[in-house]
């Protein structure tokens, strides 16, 4: 019976960690994607300062989230997003709209890929 209780505890732990990870990643990636989309809209409307400010905010927020994300995800994937986010504010500052949009698009794809790869769908399982 003792081992049964241990097994139940382990199962609950696994479910708890998995649920927390899924929710954390989904919520965070969604909010970063929203921020990047807003920044893209701003730069397309020549609101360079606004785009720069949003990019910097995204970069700092990601630095805060990075530690937790590294607990759950492949580190190089998290690093890729962090590097791209750090480039965005510089591109905005320099007025490089094309580079900004390209980097932002790649970052958004990487973020969506992170959250999609955690979903228990057939493509991921197989």
């Amino acid at each position: 019976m003792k081992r049964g209780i241990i097994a139940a505890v382990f199962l609950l732990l696994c479910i708890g960690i998995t649920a927390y990870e899924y929710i954390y990643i989904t919520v965070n990636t969604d909010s970063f994607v929203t921020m990047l989309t807003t920044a893209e809209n701003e730069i397309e409307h020549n609101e360079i300062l606004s785009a720069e400010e949003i990019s910097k905010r995204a970069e700092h927020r990601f630095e805060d989230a990075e530690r937790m994300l590294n607990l759950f995800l492949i580190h190089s994937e998290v690093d890729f997003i962090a590097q791209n986010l750090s480039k965005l504010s510089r591109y905005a500052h320099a007025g490089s709209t094309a580079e900004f949009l390209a980097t932002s698009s790649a970052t958004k794809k990487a973020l969506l890929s992170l959250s999609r790869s955690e979903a228990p769908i057939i493509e991921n399982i197989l």
Partner: protein
Amino acid sequence: MLTIIIRTLLIYIFVIIAVRIMGKRQVADMQTTELVTTLIISEVASLPMQNTNQPLLSGFVPILLLVAIEIIISIIMMKSRRFRTAVIGHPIIVIRDGVILKEQLKRLRISFEDLYSLLRQQEVFDLKEVRYGIIEPNGSLSILSRSHPDSALLKSSRDIEDELNKIEEKEETE
């Protein structure tokens, strides 16, 4: 390199605890599920050990899950004979009264040489000494010798034989 050393130590301790919780068995006595679980745990544990890019949790969580499943399966096997038979099989008599049951050996895909080897390991060098030779679900051979007095063990072997006969009859009617 320091990261690898620390990870290796952490994973090693974790796997020791996990295997300890699973229970004590020597490799030769492991049931199918235990052997499979142990093999998978070793594979899963090695991945984050070698690859620092991979989070430790990606090793710990599958191991926890495997140990939990193994414990649950072993509890169910204790309570349900049918489930136990479905998962690990049942013992099969391969020698009766000194005679090798060739059909049973064929069914188990065990050659005569393998059987003789198992007999020698049991220090049996003459088939005539053997009343019953039973291949256990874990692949080991149990011997009941003719010199053994009637006992509960013999009765349990008769039960096995009765069961075996029932299974054979069932297979024939199917």
